[in-house]
């Protein structure tokens, strides 16, 4: 079916504003393939079913809408207490001076800009392939755009238990920056890796992360999307999870006029565990969309989706979550919960939970709720002398606790918790 002219025009206009990166033959081929995928799909429009709850207009404009740089003075940088390999990107460009030496036991780290110029690199069989797999059954054109045009990013290979986490820090300095980053991660057999991400990144940010977890591997991902109010972001995580392995991802989002976080995860090996969680905090002009697609294509695997949103002053939260259980994926244990705490009547939560099951011996459950603060609980706390605002914070933290609990590392969880508490105190 031919694409509507408007879609074609928008796609070409967007592409015209982007540089086409040069590179070695493999990188060139991967980018050309992605470009072909994109042209066949066209960029998303309001009428696309997958974008029913989120208007992609600002994400596909040729120029990034302006976003003021938010200077936070209330606390030091996130994760400073964590021993890590810090890699800094400023408006989507790697900043070697601000970064640590990308060296740690059990890790091989290279920069996409350099690796893509060399003929031989481990990532050459991965770059763009997981993204391409993620285009079926639902199209994700902004990810194809990313693969085709990204010039920077990191390629991380964990060959054993990584000595420390890799921390990707995204700074935003330019009010009209339009950043595209593409990371590729390979967790080899039996290896373990934690990747941290934080920061607003740019006025507009398109980020793609492909994660290949080999048998017996473990991948942990904890992300905090920055507090800049006007920033816009679309991010994709594409993962393939082998047997007896673990993939756990948590995202904290505070503020941002438009955020769409997609995860597409295929479980291809038996006895594996996939947890995807998120907490989003929005006050006012805030639109946050979690779109998750988990495919079970193996036996005896567990997947959890836990998403909590705290919304006030007209903020909007979206959740589209799907569990697909393929034929033969017996003993699947799938769980999905999405909940919104609406702190006033102007805020809204739009949820579309989906289960599609082709095996007969599975346990899958899903739930979605939205509600206000429990007045009875609030009174109980106040009757014990806890001031109303503090009581509300306690109940709000209790509400998001189930998502925070998904973070395994206590020190990292404490960092995330402190940001959450700080946000609540500033948004009473």
């Amino acid at each position, binding site marked *: 079916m031919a694409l509507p002219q408007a879609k074609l025009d928008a796609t070409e206009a967007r592409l015209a504003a982007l540089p086409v990166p040069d590179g070695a033959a493999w990188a060139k081929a991967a980018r050309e393939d992605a470009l072909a995928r994109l042209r066949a799909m066209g960029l998303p429009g309001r009428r696309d079913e997958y974008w029913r709850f989120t208007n992609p207009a600002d994400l596909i404009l040729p120029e990034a809408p302006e976003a003021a740089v938010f200077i936070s003075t209330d606390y030091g940088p996130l994760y400073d207490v964590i021993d890590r390999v810090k890699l800094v990107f400023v408006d989507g460009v790697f900043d070697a001076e601000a970064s640590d030496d990308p060296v740690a036991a059990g890790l091989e780290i290279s920069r996409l800009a350099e690796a893509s110029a060399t003929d031989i690199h481990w990532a050459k069989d991965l770059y763009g392939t997981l993204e391409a797999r993620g285009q079926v059954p639902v199209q994700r054109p902004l990810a194809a755009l990313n693969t085709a045009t990204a010039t920077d990013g990191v390629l991380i290979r964990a060959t054993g238990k990584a000595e420390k986490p890799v921390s990707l820090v995204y700074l935003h300095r330019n009010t009209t920056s339009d950043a595209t980053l593409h990371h590729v991660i390979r967790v080899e057999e039996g290896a373990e890796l934690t990747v941290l991400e934080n920061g607003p990144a740019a006025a507009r940010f398109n980020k793609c992360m492909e994660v290949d977890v080999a048998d017996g591997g473990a991948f942990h991902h904890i992300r905090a999307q920055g507090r800049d109010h006007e920033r816009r972001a679309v991010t994709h995580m594409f993962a393939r999870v082998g047997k007896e392995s673990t993939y756990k991802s948590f995202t904290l989002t505070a503020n941002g006029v438009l955020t769409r976080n997609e995860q597409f995860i295929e479980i291809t090996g038996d006895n594996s565990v996939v947890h995807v969680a998120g907490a989003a905090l929005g006050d006012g002009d805030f639109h946050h969309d979690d779109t998750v697609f988990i495919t079970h294509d193996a036996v005896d695997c567990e997947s959890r989706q836990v998403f909590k949103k705290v919304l006030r002053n007209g903020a909007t939260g979206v959740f589209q979550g799907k569990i697909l259980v393929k034929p033969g994926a017996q003993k699947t244990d799938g769980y999905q919960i999405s909940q919104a705490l609406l702190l006033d009547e102007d805020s809204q939560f739009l949820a579309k939970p989906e289960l599609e099951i082709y095996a007969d011996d599975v346990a899958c459950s899903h739930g979605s709720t939205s509600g206000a603060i*429990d*007045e*009875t*609980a609030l*009174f*109980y*706390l*106040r*009757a*014990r*002398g*806890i*001031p*109303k605002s*503090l*009581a509300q914070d*306690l*109940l709000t*933290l*209790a*509400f998001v*606790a*189930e998502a925070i609990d998904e973070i395994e590392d206590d020190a990292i969880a404490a960092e995330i918790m402190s940001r959450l508490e700080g946000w609540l105190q500033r948004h009473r």
Partner: protein
Amino acid sequence: MLNIKNLHVSLEEEDKQILRGVDLEVHAGKVHAIMGPNGSGKSTLSYVLSGRDGYEVTEGSATLEGADILDMEPEERAAAGLFLAFQYPVEIPGVGNMTFLRTAVNAQRKARGEDEVSAADFLKQIRAKAKDLKIDADMLKRAVNVGFSGGEKKRNEILQMAMLEPKMCILDETDSGLDVDAMKLVADGVNALRDAGRGFLVITHYQRLLDHIKPDVVHIMADGKIVKTGGPELALEVENNGYADILAEVA
């Protein structure tokens, strides 16, 4: 201590009067009991005094050590020394019992201009007090009242009372849902807090709680008013003859 004068209260949502002129004075060091049939307004009185939404005071006053409490927010009343042991303690998933109690103790201290209790001192205090009430470490760690039995919830109320050390304690049907052993445990907890500087108002249907918590004064409430006041013998009269005789007598 607690001084209630001619208190008239209606429900906010519907035009229904519940309290029709309650007069009551509780002195420091004394235990007052309020008994009365269902619907007489006993629980409403406890809610209005603690500041729950949904009630409108149309006439009268209530003061705690001379301060008008009806004008205060619920947390201000608590900091002023008022404590309500709930008939139905509320379950709060996700908020740890210990966190809750420490936040409450420190919030009250802060409101009174006192220093916060150190984590170590708090832990020491709560462990000792929990032990007296047979509250184990697990109950302290769990979310507030979540998965607690009826008796555990009531013991948890008394633990809060013991930690917050209020001046004026109101116990709203604390005996409901308790077996004899649990009631004794709760009563022991309350008795341990009896003190010359502290007043108690014990709201109950039945005399049996008053066997364990011996009142100084007993009030009978009916149709939104205190209709009779007497000594502990009044509670026995209710136990033996029911409310009908007393109500007929005052009608």
